[in-house]
């Protein structure tokens, strides 16, 4: 099965958000967390989408 490049890119973006977490002010850490989690979910959705397309 072909690897979904979009999912990989989203995981890299999620990693960037989580790396920023300790650098952010405590009052803004939720922004890093929310954005990171969103990218993880987008990566999962993208991978599932690619998988369903490859089965067609």
């Amino acid at each position, binding site marked *: 099965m072909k690897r979904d490049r*979009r999912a990989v890119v989203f995981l890299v*973006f999620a990693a960037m958000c989580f790396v*920023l977490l300790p*650098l*952010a*002010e405590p009052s803004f850490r939720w922004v890093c967390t929310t*954005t990171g989690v*969103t990218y993880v979910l*987008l990566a999962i959705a993208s991978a599932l989408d690619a998988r369903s397309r490859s089965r067609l």
Partner: protein
Amino acid sequence: VAGVVIVIAVALAFDFVNGFHDAANSIATVVSTRVLTPRMAVAWAAFFNFVAFLVFGTHVANTIAKDVVLQNVLTIGVVFSALIGAIAWDLITFYLGLPTSSSHALVGGVAGAAVARHGGHVLVEAGLRKIGVFIVLSPLIGLALGLLLTVAISWMFHRVHRVDRLNRGFRRGQLVSAAAFSLGHGANDAQKTMGVILAVLIATRHLPKTSGVPLWVVLAAHTAIGLGTLTGGWRIVKTMGSRITRLQPVGGVAAESAAAATLFFTSAAGIPVSTTHTITGAIVGVGAARRLSAVRWGVATRVVWAWVLTIPGAFIISFITSRILVVFT
């Protein structure tokens, strides 16, 4: 007093160049999807740039004035050098057609000019960390929101078969989203100039240290950015409007709404972010919702390089300007 007047004039010139440079961000998608003529689009954006002062506070201005370097080192010479560095960087990147950030140029300029005179210890670590974190986060938030909005719109309207009718509806919607983005742009970017002017007025004891931004400064900054936008910059329209990804009206609405939401949040939280990078992220998000290859990554990479180089570039120019001023004064 003459020094203060000169620095305020240069600060307003920076604001004008900012509007001129960033006009493309507000109008690129509206022009590239032919919703408005270039002339109308520029007038539309300039109007909402100006009225932004009625909607948002001045938290970003306070961050620029108090959270980049120690407030007591912001003398007329330092602020003047900072502005020269930021304006020079903006004009260089404008000439090259690169959508870089005037905000980061200003932060780099203030830091460079202050370090040249007083050394590295004057940098405010917490403030710079806040700005630094959102340099990376704002385009990522814009990208995620742009993508999610595109997917949400696709789900909502996937049963509509009259595509021409749908496009007509979204063309009208783009007027609202472009206005919202211009409002966010005016709010976040005009405040950076207000911050610089506030710093000079406090440094020269025209205002007390705890003072907020006077109304005349707010009005002057919004007028300058509005006039700059009205004069418009066309080189960057091409990069933003069509070279990153091809946009339809529906994509334009998604990109501008995503970027506007990001700017509203950061302006309310007092975080100076790049309006350029936020809209770039949102446009990439719209393209990536279709497929990754819909984004021209070569152009996006150029934007990232400009992004990485802006703070060091403006820092170096301001550092040199500040050193030269020390020799001559």
